[in-house]
């Protein structure tokens, strides 16, 4: 398949460039990029994609999702999650290992990779659990899992409580050159907690989760990363103080990176009022001051990446008492719109910076191909309309679960087409039919 993407605004965060022009995809890689594809190169093109008025970006990569397979297929599968990713403009996702059984060894990593090959339209790079069964008692066979395709080690959803175990995992990760992605939470401080601790939890009579629970583990993990030389990546950073800790660590040269998620720059604990279980997530939605700190951290580069922590749950797991409800919200199909509307249009990030945090940065942190628009790079491309206005409608989502906290939100900007290995894996249906007829006429000339 030779595909020409014509006349789009091509943004390459890796080189910091933005230019109008053409892109030729051939044999799964970017074959040519420039202002105007020469006639000689244009021969034998199977399809021309008119990208005028659209942004052409390196494929978005979500380094933090829950695809629920194996074990919780009633919430999501690698197939449905993959489709949701493609529809949201993502060309690659990193599923977390809190599956059943846990993705904690060669067999389970291979299973995830095989199911991805068989069913997912987007690339799936599994992360392996730091400890067997996510039980925090014995280390997983990390090296074996790496050979099977794991790109990172993580304690997501089951944060390592012992500093000793964390130290050893970090040393072992360093040995096999894998980053450690950590969910920072001191569980003793968040016991029975269901939302951020503060005046809102007090008024609602809900058990709080203090920010200190996150801050303490961010501080501890930074110290241990400095000691061990492990590449540390802090997941879903949400608190003002934790961001400051990362800022200081970076300033003194510690190999630490971090991500945040749209919910932490779009929502606050006020959104939990009314016992809104859709806004229940972990880390919990914090305060306005934390939200401002997340935005500042994104703007000054302290926060490297934007992920979604896409956490699908069945209806009955959210339509229940708040304290019983599952933690987490879906995010794959809303992230791009939220970033474009609430970070780019709001003047917090440039378009290039925003795309970089969703493509170039995750690729760099995980040492993966992609995240660049240049000849020879993988033909993983996200084409989006930065001006498209749309309303979030859970009924239209591809994910098997609909637990979004953003239903009814008016957003500007959404994916028009998603290409993986040079193949179109998602295309906005309205636009697709319009283009077909337009190009049908052109080809006849």
């Amino acid at each position, binding site marked *: 398949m030779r595909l020409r993407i014509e006349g789009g605004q091509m943004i390459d965060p890796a080189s910091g460039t933005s230019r109008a022009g053409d892109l030729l995809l051939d044999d799964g890689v970017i074959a040519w990029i420039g202002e105007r594809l020469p006639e000689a190169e244009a021969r034998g093109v199977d399809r021309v994609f008119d990208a005028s008025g659209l942004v052409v970006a390196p494929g978005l990569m979500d380094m933090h999702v829950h695809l629920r397979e194996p074990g919780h297929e009633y919430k999501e599968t690698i197939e449905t999650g993959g489709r949701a990713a493609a529809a949201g403009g993502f060309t690659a996702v990193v599923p977390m290992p809190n599956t059943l059984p846990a993705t904690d060894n060669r067999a389970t990593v291979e299973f995830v990779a095989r199911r991805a090959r068989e069913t997912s339209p987007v690339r799936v790079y599994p992360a392996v659990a730091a400890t067997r069964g996510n039980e925090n008692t014995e280390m997983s066979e990390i090296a074996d899992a790496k050979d099977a395709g794991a790109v990172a080690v993580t304690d997501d959803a089951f944060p390592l409580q012992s500093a000793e175990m964390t130290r050893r995992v970090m040393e072992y990760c360093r040995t096999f050159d894998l980053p450690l992605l950590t969910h920072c939470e001191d569980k003793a401080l968040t016991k029975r907690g269901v939302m951020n601790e503060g*005046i809102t939890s007090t008024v609602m009579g809900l058990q709080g989760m203090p920010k200190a629970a996150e801050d303490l583990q961010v501080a501890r993990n930074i110290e241990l990363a400095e000691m061990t030389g492990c590449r540390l990546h802090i997941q879903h950073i949400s608190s003002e103080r934790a961001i400051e800790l990362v800022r200081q660590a970076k300033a003194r040269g510690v190999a630490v990176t971090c991500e945040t998620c749209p919910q932490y720059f779009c929502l606050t604990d006020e959104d939990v009022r009314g016992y809104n279980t859709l806004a229940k997530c972990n880390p919990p939605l914090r305060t306005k001051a934390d939200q401002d700190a997340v935005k500042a951290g994104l703007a000054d580069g302290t926060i490297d990446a934007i992920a979604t922590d896409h956490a699908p749950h069945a209806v009955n797991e959210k339509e229940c008492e708040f304290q019983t409800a599952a933690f987490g919200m879906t995010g794959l199909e809303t992230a791009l719109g939220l970033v474009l509307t609430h970070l780019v249009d709001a003047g917090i990030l440039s378009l290039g910076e925003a795309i970089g945090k969703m493509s170039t940065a995750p690729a760099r942190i995980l040492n993966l191909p992609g995240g660049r628009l240049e000849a020879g790079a993988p033909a993983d491309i996200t084409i989006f309309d930065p001006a498209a206005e749309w309303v979030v409608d859970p009924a239209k989502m591809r994910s098997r679960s609909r637990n979004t906290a953003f239903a009814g939100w008016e957003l500007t900007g959404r994916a028009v087409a998603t290409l993986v290995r040079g193949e179109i894996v998602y295309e906005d249906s309205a636009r697709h039919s319009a283009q077909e007829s337009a190009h049908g006429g052109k080809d006849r000339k």
Partner: protein
Amino acid sequence: MNLTRKDILGLQEMSSEEILLILNRAADMKEILSRDIKKVPTLRGKSVVTMFFENSTRTRMSFEMAAKILSADVSGFAASTSSVQKGESLKDTILTLDAMKPDVFVIRHSASGAAQFTASLTGAHVINAGDGAHEHPTQALLDMLTIIEHKGGIEGLTVAIVGDIAHSRVARSNIWGLMKLGATVRIVGPETLLPAEIRQLPVEVHTDLRSGIRGCDVVNVLRIQLERQEAGLFPSLREYAQRFGVNSNVLREAQPDVLVMHPGPMNRGVEIAPDVADGEFSVVTEQVTNGVAVRMALLYLLLGGSPDAASN
């Protein structure tokens, strides 16, 4: 003025006018309780379902008595005998009972927000009989009715709420109700039993019992639960009683005509000394009587009884 809302979920969302309407009606209802024949036909043909997912004797009995005096039919369950034991979700339980077309649900549940969740699932009226650590509006209403009976009003009074504020729905409902009616509210307890950022509310916070009670018109003593000690929130019931137990000595700091209230059940010798619990300032049994009156008033107002019916 009539009560136009569908549900009674908490006092935070209520206006002072609504609260006074309920309290005035409760005063009328109380007269019925003093009669020889304690039955009026007002709510004949109306059905009330009581759902107690958490143990309660006084609140459940109080609601049942209130409904029966007004001639409503009352059915109900306690969680230990219900399908909850079989793993049925709260949503399914409510939808099942709702299909039997009750007029009012009364719900007590350990989860904050459970009453609001119930209200979202049914077109029937919902009365919150206590949800987690959130609100217990009928308790606060009966507390306020008791205060008004003794003090003539709420405005300008200073009311101390003493004890485990963090886990107390009674405290939260009292804070909202008393503030709306113009009282000064003091919160008294050790920091471990105060909820986060409580100082952001317009209340006075005292961690010393003596200063907290000083000059108060009312002292509302909350029940302390042994599990709080087990959770490490204070070292022993002994030390709690010494530092935060309301006894006759510390009560001398209050106004000479102070009212001592307790939502019950009391731990004599822990949060309240026996001689105070049964002493001259205690109004705990009046609170129980007023509980029936307040719940009668709410059922009456929600179900739209005609203005004269209750007095016939």
